[in-house]
């Protein structure tokens, strides 16, 4: 059974990829992911905002209360105050590349123009096989216009793609008015692949305390519906790799994404819930499914249920009422 999968110009042993998660925060976690059987590892995201925030907080807190009282002119030793850059992350990339054989994909979320491009270059220098751009950005400020959001994404992708020679994968949000157009623009700007979709921290309310709660729920299989739809729609239409992400729990979701047209299937929640070795179960499950249907490779089935190849392509375009229309009249009778 040939499970080999092309993705972003890389050759992966199979299509099950670990997406950005806390598991890839440490070298140990990265090793465990490889041992668990994934074919590539996307590291947790390097957030430029986090670095900036951490530096500013450190500066502020380490000097709070200082130079106020003659006995306590400061409350911290003069260590660790120097602003830091992405050094730790870069070191992780370097060591991960040395430690594991599967491709390492660095993930970046920038704030400033130089943050995006400079960090991207550093990640390439550190040895990342590919770069994933995490375009997480909530345009909550008044005055953001939809087109401006799109332009910003395109601009970032273009700038980064120009500054590095490793392939760039873009993990994008589902909240564009025209996903198809957006995907095309990003690919034109230099994206070698798209990952559908980024999940957002969506707050909840605590009704006792009347407070906003920040937590991230692990994804559930039903959440794959939206990315499944768009992968099925985009498959064969754009010249870039597609990755399905969100809602992968069992081999069924893996198969579904591949049938929709995904090149690779990314999972975090299942690995967090079941441990990294679950990746092997997913791959085995995929193999079994393919074998049971007499397929010899994943390429045989990839996209077989994309919008272009499915029997009822309008199912992707219309809502539930379509069922009623179809049942109302048999397609085989005049």
């Amino acid at each position, binding site marked *: 059974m040939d499970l080999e999968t092309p993705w972003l110009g890389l050759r992966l042993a199979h299509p099950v990829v670990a997406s950005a998660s806390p598991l890839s925060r*440490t070298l140990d976690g990265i090793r465990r992911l490889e041992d668990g059987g994934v074919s590539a590892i996307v590291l947790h995201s390097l957030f430029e905002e986090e670095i*900036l925030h*951490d*530096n*500013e*907080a*450190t*500066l502020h*807190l*380490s*000097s*709070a*209360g*200082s*130079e*106020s*009282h*003659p*006995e*306590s*002119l*400061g*409350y*911290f*030793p*003069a*260590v*660790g*105050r*120097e*602003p*830091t*850059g992405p050094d*730790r992350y870069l070191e992780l990339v370097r060591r991960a590349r040395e430690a594991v054989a599967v491709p390492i994909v660095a993930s970046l979320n920038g704030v*400033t123009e130089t943050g995006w491009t400079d960090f991207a270059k550093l990640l390439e220098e550190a040895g990342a096989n590919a770069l994933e751009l995490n375009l997480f950005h909530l345009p909550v400020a008044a005055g953001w216009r939809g087109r401006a959001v799109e332009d910003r994404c395109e601009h970032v992708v273009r700038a980064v793609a120009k500054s590095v020679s490793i392939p760039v994968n873009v993990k994008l949000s589902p909240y564009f008015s025209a996903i198809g157009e957006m995907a095309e623009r990003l690919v034109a700007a230099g994206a070698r692949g798209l990952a559908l979709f980024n999940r957002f921290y969506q707050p909840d309310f605590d009704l006792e*305390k*009347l*407070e906003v709660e920040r937590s991230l729920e692990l994804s559930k299989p039903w959440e794959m519906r939206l990315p499944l739809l768009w992968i099925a729609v985009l498959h064969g239409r754009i010249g870039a790799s597609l990755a399905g992400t969100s809602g992968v729990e069992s081999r069924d979701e893996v198969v579904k994404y591949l049938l929709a047209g995904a090149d690779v299937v990314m999972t975090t929640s299942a690995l967090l819930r079941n441990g990294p070795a679950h990746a092997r179960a997913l791959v085995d499950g995929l193999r079994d499914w393919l074998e049971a249907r007499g397929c010899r490779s994943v390429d045989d089935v990839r996209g077989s249920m994309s919008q272009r190849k499915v029997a009822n392509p309008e199912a992707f375009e219309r809502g539930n009422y379509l069922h009623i229309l179809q049942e109302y009249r048999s397609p085989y009778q005049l």
Partner: protein
Amino acid sequence: MTAIGRRLATLDGNEACADVAYRMNEICAIYPITPSSTMAELADQWAAEGRPNLFGNVPDVIEMQSEAGAAGVLHGALQTGALTTTFTASQGLLLMIPNLYKIAGELTPAVIHVAARALASHALSIFGDHQDVMAARSTGFALLASASVQEAHDMAAVAQASTLESRVPFLHFFDGFRTSHEMQKIELLSDEDLRALVPDAHVLLHRGRALDPDHPFVRGTAQNPDVYFQSREAANPFYAALPAIVDSVLERLADRTGRRYRLFEYHGAPDAERIVVGMGSGMEAAREAVDALVARGERVGVLGVRLFRPFSVSHLLEAIPPTVRAVAVLDRTKEAGASGEPLYLEVVAAFAARGGELPRLAGGRYGLASKEFTPAMVKAVLDGLAEPAMRNPFTVGIVDDVSGTSLTVDPGFVTEPADGHRALFFGLGSDGTVGATKNTIKILADDPGIFAQGYFVYDSKKSGSQTVSHLRFGHSPIRSSYLIREAHFVGCHQFAMIERHDVLGSAADGATVLLNSPYGPDEVFDRLSRRAQEEILAKKLRLHVIDAARVAREAGIAGRINTVLQTCFFAISGVLPREAALEKIKDSIRKTYGRKGGRVVEENFAAVDTTLANLREVPLPPRPTRTDERTRLVPDDAPDFVRRVTATLLEGRGDELPVSALPVDGTFPSGTARFEKRGIAAFVPAWDPDLCIQCGNCAFVCPHAVIRAKLFHESRLGEAPAGFRSAPIETRGFPETRYALQVYPDDCTGCALCVEVCPAKSPRETKRRALHMTAREEILDSARASVSFFETLSPTPRSRVDFSTVRGTQFLEPLFEFSGACAGCGETPYVKLVSQLFGDRLIVANATGCSSIYGGNLPTTPWTKDAEGRGPAWSNSLFEDAAEFGLGMRAAAEHHERHALARVRALRERIGADLADPLVASPQRSEAEIRDQRERVAELRRRLREDASPEAAQLLSIAHHLVRRSVWVMGGDGWAYDIGSGGVDHVLASGRDVNLLVLDTEVYSNTGGQASKATPLGAVAKFASGGKRVERKDLALHAIAYGHVYVARVAMGANPQQTLLALREAEAHPGPSLVLAYSHCIAHGINMQYGLDQQQRAVRTGYWPLMRWNPGLFAIGENPLSLDSGAPTLRLREFTDRELRFRLLARTDPETAERLLAQAEKSNALRVWLYRQMAAQHLKE
């Protein structure tokens, strides 16, 4: 003169000294004490950074539990051949004294570096004088003095070289603060210089004398009358040889550096008739005075003493010109009852030994506890010598109207060099003024031809502290070891300061003044006080104004006004060409924030660039425009002492108080913090009675007792001012009763803990709670009127208060209020609560530390009294002995109580059985019982006054002891876990009814956050720069091991009700009690507003399990242990990730940080498991 090619650096005396001490030693035994702590901190930091010493190794830096412990390590390491040092001051040196005798008696080469400081006698003082080193003068250590930052550097090396050559150990000292904290540009000694001073052979000889099993011997024997005496004399030749050895080292130093020091340094007219003799930084001022006087033709001089022990008579006499007829010896110490202070007596003895005609000799005291010592004072001394009858002994620098010792000083005598530039900056600790001034000094001193000096004066508050920065620079070396009197530039960085302080008093005529003001150039002059206006016009000052807050805000660096004001200084002072100066500021911003500073750098640059456009010179009118008098700081109806003394201190004029104004024994009235009304908060809480559920949480947690609750009859509402707020009480059974929650806006620090803890949110706008922060200025007039009315309402009678609930305690009057602790302090709410619960019969033994400083540092004290005049009686003995001090108080109370009870029994018939019997029988455990007893005692006193017998008089004198006293020992973890642990252990073991409250911040907060045994694994602290590598001590388990000790671990932010319960149980427990109170702290690196939230996380992660061990339960067959917090519901990381102390290690050494966190998680789990196991046992089974 600067030698070519030598490395220059701008640093303070502590760093100058430590830089040499670190390089020349192999082991540093350390312990924090102001003002020497920085030396130890630097040693720890350098070791953590892997900086090697002269021998290519990284010194081993060991923090000990006390200075006594450090001295023990010093002794042991020396005896086994390591080059070892320590750094200390004041009481710390006193704790080392037993070992100093040993080290000297064994002729062990060592150097102890001392930032010399006053001793605690009638009061503690952190400031500089020579009392500590003089207390060590008989130990056998050589005493070597440094008078400046350069000397602190050079003499550290001289001492090390001399001790190795002579075998006599050295105490190298320089003046605390004046030298230890003064910044100067100095020439650094290279490693080659140090090697040249210390031949390897001397080091090898030291090692050769070490204890060694390969060449065994014993040292430290016990001796009998036959040989002890001779043995003591056997070492004499080493002392006799020492002066020559030191002199030869000084000569070697001169050969390499060109700086020639001598054992006694004479400066002045070669044919002087009158001279002053002294030691330390004061001699720098004396040289300046002498230069000015010699230039006028006076025949005067100054002799600076460098080597005080051994005192070389011959070198002294050689150094004094033969023409001298009168000598005034200045001692910066006080030896009560002596015929003279030590240096004076040495000089007298030297002249006596010389024989012949003696000069006129007088001894005087000056400069105790950093009292200013100026050239004018030196002149007063020299003038005194010209008079036929010089006072002897004399004092200078104070007005002694009691013993008449003081000399009159002419304040008009000013000797500041004409070519120098002097600038003063008035600011707040929080506004970065000091940091900016230090930065300015470095910018200026960057020019090799410029000498610069910085000195910083702070007040004693930890919140809203005011600072004055003194900056001198010029083309000649600066020796002015005193505060600036005539400044060319005055920067007032806080508008309010110009009203409260004499900011312009030290401005020279024609000086440039920069005022940070919300008012523009057209308005600002009219906003100034009459006094300020007069001063500006009389001195023809050039007034400039800028709204730095606005400029900073617009540049995106809101609150950081220092960049703006520093730019203004360079723009208008003319000390550097404007463009060059701005570029240097930007350079320093780059250096401060680093290459990766990102947007912070950009924002600061923007602030620099926009400053000049906002800076304006103020056109001055010909005459003052205001007519009003100065506002008084304290009200006219304040007690006499407050008006005479406290008010003067508050105005910053304490130096003017004569001796007669001060108490003879350190006794001060309590209840004085209420007169300060510092008004330091920009935002204060405002109360919304409609939302409030009257739970009392806010009043409970308020660190400064600025939120008070009272119940009152609604009939009083008619008198209330318009803005006064109240609500019907939310409890049934109190008709016509109203509830008022009053915020004191002038005493509030704006910490917002109250808002964070308020559970009552508006369902309409959830960010709004029953307390919400409001701009102080907006509500000030109304709030002040409300406070005045509120204070006329009677406190809720204690008999009506439910002591068992947080809700109830809000009605108890806090007898600890308005302290100067940090905004949002985690300690003071506990202290306040104890004062509320037991204050009217409370005695506090306070260990030195934050709590003794915010509790008892002049000018005021937050400890106060209730409407009946009762309140906590408070005292601080030392850092190390608080538990024992408290035990003594308990013993006295019990003794007097027993005595009184015996007398009551003996006089039963005369007193009346109706009174005597219940007096004797009352258990006094509940508040009601205590109240009843108090009434009985009042009746007893009434009856006794009618009885003229001596027995009645005796009983009358101790009758008040019949009301049970509550003795509390309070202190931090530095005390309880480290320096006082032996005493804590012993007092707990004693079984006596003493209550110990440990305000556990897990570091030495007061001295700036050094690690203690309470510091958690993985946390970065001073003395643990590389992260603490061992677990914190579980003091609760230690105490539980005794069985009879009541032990509680509490965290107010996690469970206030449990805190209340524990404190009440502890007090009621008839034996010793230990309450460990988690206190969030600024040294944790948190936003203090969320301190209580962090407490909750500490508990929910199992890091700080809440528990009570009540031996009383054991007596009735129950398990004494109650675990009051449930199983952990958060991972430890969710507590540690929010504190800089844990995060810092992750920035420097992420792998170690991860490893230590994992280790901490395991031991956390183990601790929780252990407590749960213990709590789960059923004793009856």
